């Protein structure tokens, strides 16, 4: 067996491609090509990458042999003979201008609305607006202003709430919304909802929460991706690429999601890890692992979140969204400053640093391809990166809250427990370039202890010493399984807060240095084992001893 596989990712800035060779020994990377994305006609950049990878011309259809013959065989000598065609298989992904824009409607915020969010994220979307309970005029206007591609409409268990669902359907029917409505709510009123929404573009999927607490998002995820194909891919030459390849594009984040799932399923020792993909506009966090470990003394409140979870933060990015990031991170400023600048910045409040960062943020928001030149600017970039990583991971992970009951102390867990995560993979520009293992571990350690919120807790004085060894570590999970270690190791923080953020404890850091994840992800459904093995093999571990 000798098979060539082409994988191409059409990003908003660059179109990247790779040629893989698949043999009995597994998958091998043969060639990589990158070229600027041709925004006005995506097929041109795609064609260029395709030709450079394969030596074959990019034409209208690949059913026949390449017409202009000349398979100027660039080393791909062992081309598969016979069966169907001489040209290699092609899969491709598209970032769709920074992701699918999805508005989520649910009934109860912690139940159907939260599950709708999880479904949208897992499909590669980002939430641009949402609404719980009855859809009010102001919420509706907000949704319309956010101009989502897809409106994910949920609410009620099967056989459950009808009143709010039908009310919302009527509101949507009367609204000028022109995008696609994906109904994945109470199945008992599906017919009626469809009737009410007649005239709108509507797609249906099974209820995301058929019974209280039961999450069913697979079909909704698939439906979102189909809508992505049918409505978002229109124009800009993607249709042509689609015909040429004989296959549909996958949203880039969904390709990464598939790869992350394949790694977790097929690679030994990789059943508890996170991927952080940090870009100029958004920060995506993926996690693989049990959401709740059933430790003694810990009670799960709310939903048990999925084994593979993705969140996307549209307000956390180091270029396009730098201003929003800076706003979000201001309360945590003192701690982050110490992390990036050590003690050298002295008294933070009197330093000129905030103003400098502010100016830098203005600059990079204007010029989003800006590359820092001075040492000072590089530090500020690092500050922004760590800030985005911290906030994005905080939002992705859950919390433990200490509570006293008549039978003793217990901990209430909400959200996903990331403590057992033992590896962290940095992907996307900055994180795939720089070895950030050490500062990220320090950061997580501080955050887990409530350190980042120091400002709001009125102290602002997290001593560097608090990161030193020998201190009772907040939220330790021994060996990643089952126990909280000796009593006392969950001893919250000494800063007066009994809330613990469930962040990874001491994870190793790896970099997806050649940014292969989306490209590998394009084949994750077909060859999960081989693709995930190559993904792990190409990761760059931390330098220095760990």
């Amino acid at each position, binding site marked *: 067996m000798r098979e060539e596989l082409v994988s191409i990712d059409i990003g908003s800035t660059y179109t990247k491609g790779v040629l893989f060779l698949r043999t009995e020994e597994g998958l091998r990377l043969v060639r990589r090509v990158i070229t600027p994305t041709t925004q006005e006609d995506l097929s041109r950049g795609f064609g260029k990458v395709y030709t450079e990878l394969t030596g074959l011309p990019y034409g209208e259809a690949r059913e026949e042999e390449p017409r202009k013959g000349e398979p100027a065989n660039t080393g791909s000598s062992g081309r598969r003979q016979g069966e169907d065609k001489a040209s290699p298989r092609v899969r491709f992904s598209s970032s769709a201008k920074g992701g699918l824009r999805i508005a989520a409607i649910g*009934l109860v915020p912690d139940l159907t609305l939260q599950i709708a969010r999880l479904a949208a994220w897992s499909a590669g979307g980002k939430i641009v607006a949402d609404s719980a*309970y009855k859809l009010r005029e102001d919420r509706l206007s907000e949704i319309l202003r956010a101009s989502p591609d897809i409106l994910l409409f949920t609410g*009620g268990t099967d*056989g459950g*709430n009808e009143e709010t669902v039908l009310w919302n359907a009527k509101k949507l029917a009367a609204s000028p919304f022109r995008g696609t409505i994906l109904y994945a709510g109470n199945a008992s009123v599906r017919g009626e909802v469809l009737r009410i929404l007649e005239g709108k573009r509507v797609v249906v999927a099974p209820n995301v929460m058929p019974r*209280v607490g039961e999450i069913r998002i697979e079909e909704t995820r698939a439906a979102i991706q189909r809508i992505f194909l049918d409505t978002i891919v229109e124009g800009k030459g993607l249709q042509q690429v689609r015909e040429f390849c004989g296959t549909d594009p996958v949203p880039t984040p969904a390709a990464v999601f598939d790869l992350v799932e394949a790694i977790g399923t097929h690679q030994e020792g990789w059943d508890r890890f996170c991927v952080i993909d940090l870009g100029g506009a958004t920060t995506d966090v993926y996690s693989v692992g049990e959401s709740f470990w059933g430790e003694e003394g810990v009670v799960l*409140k709310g939903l048990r979140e999925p084994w593979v979870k993705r969140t996307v933060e549209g307000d956390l990015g180091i270029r396009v969204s730098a201003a929003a990031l800076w706003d979000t991170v201001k309360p945590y400023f003192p701690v982050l400053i110490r992390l990036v600048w050590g003690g050298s910045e002295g008294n933070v409040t009197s330093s000129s640093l905030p103003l400098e960062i502010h100016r830098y943020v203005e600059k990079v928001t204007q010029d989003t391809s800006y590359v820092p030149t001075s040492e000072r600017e590089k530090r500020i970039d690092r500050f922004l990166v760590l800030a985005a990583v911290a906030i994005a991971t905080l939002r992705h992970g859950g919390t433990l809250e200490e509570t006293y*009951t008549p*039978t003793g102390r217990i901990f209430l867990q909400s959200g996903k427990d990331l403590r057992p995560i033992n590896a962290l993979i940095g992907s996307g520009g900055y994180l795939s370039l720089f070895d950030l293992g050490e500062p990220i571990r320090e950061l997580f350690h501080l955050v887990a202890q409530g350190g980042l919120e120091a400002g709001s807790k009125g102290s602002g004085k997290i001593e560097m010493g608090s990161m030193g060894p020998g201190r009772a570590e907040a939220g330790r999970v021994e060996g990643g399984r089952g126990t909280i270690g000796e009593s006392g190791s969950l001893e919250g923080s000494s800063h007066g807060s009994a809330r613990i953020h469930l962040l990874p404890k001491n994870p190793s850091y790896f970099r997806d240095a050649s940014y292969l994840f989306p490209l590998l992800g394009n084949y994750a459904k077909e060859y999960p084992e081989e693709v995930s093995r190559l993904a792990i093999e190409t990761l760059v571990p931390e330098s220095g001893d760990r």
Partner: protein
Amino acid sequence: MSGMGAISSGAGTPACGPDSPLKGKIVLGVIGYDCHSVGNKILEVFFTEKGFQVTNLGVMVSQDEFIDAALETASDAILVSSLYGHGLIDCQGFRDRCVERGLEDIILYVGGNLVVGKTPFSEVEEKFKQMGFDRVFPPDVDLEQVAQLLEQDIDARRTGKH
């Protein structure tokens, strides 16, 4: 609220609303930091067998979790258990919270060891009724009787008499 305390034989009366084969939809759970789970399981099995659609939230359930579940499932009633003696505190404001969150007419039952000590049951019952619970049960209540009352109350609610 009609028929409070009146026990009539529910036998023979139609089970439920015209288009539902079920006797009604109920949410079950043990409130507060109470982890007595055995009785909760028994209630789930019992009411399911009696023809109710049960959403059982298990132990250590907060007021909002009861209400969230009742909203999503459009349940007719919430049945609150409390066995560790702190029921009065845990249930404080439950009805008000239901009203605030749009469940003003939901049927609220509570039962178990609701208070610590030897307070006569009638006093306990009175306290919880003042808090807005429709029915209050001691720990040794006959479940058959509860099921009958529940069916009757749900019927009344569905026909607008509740």
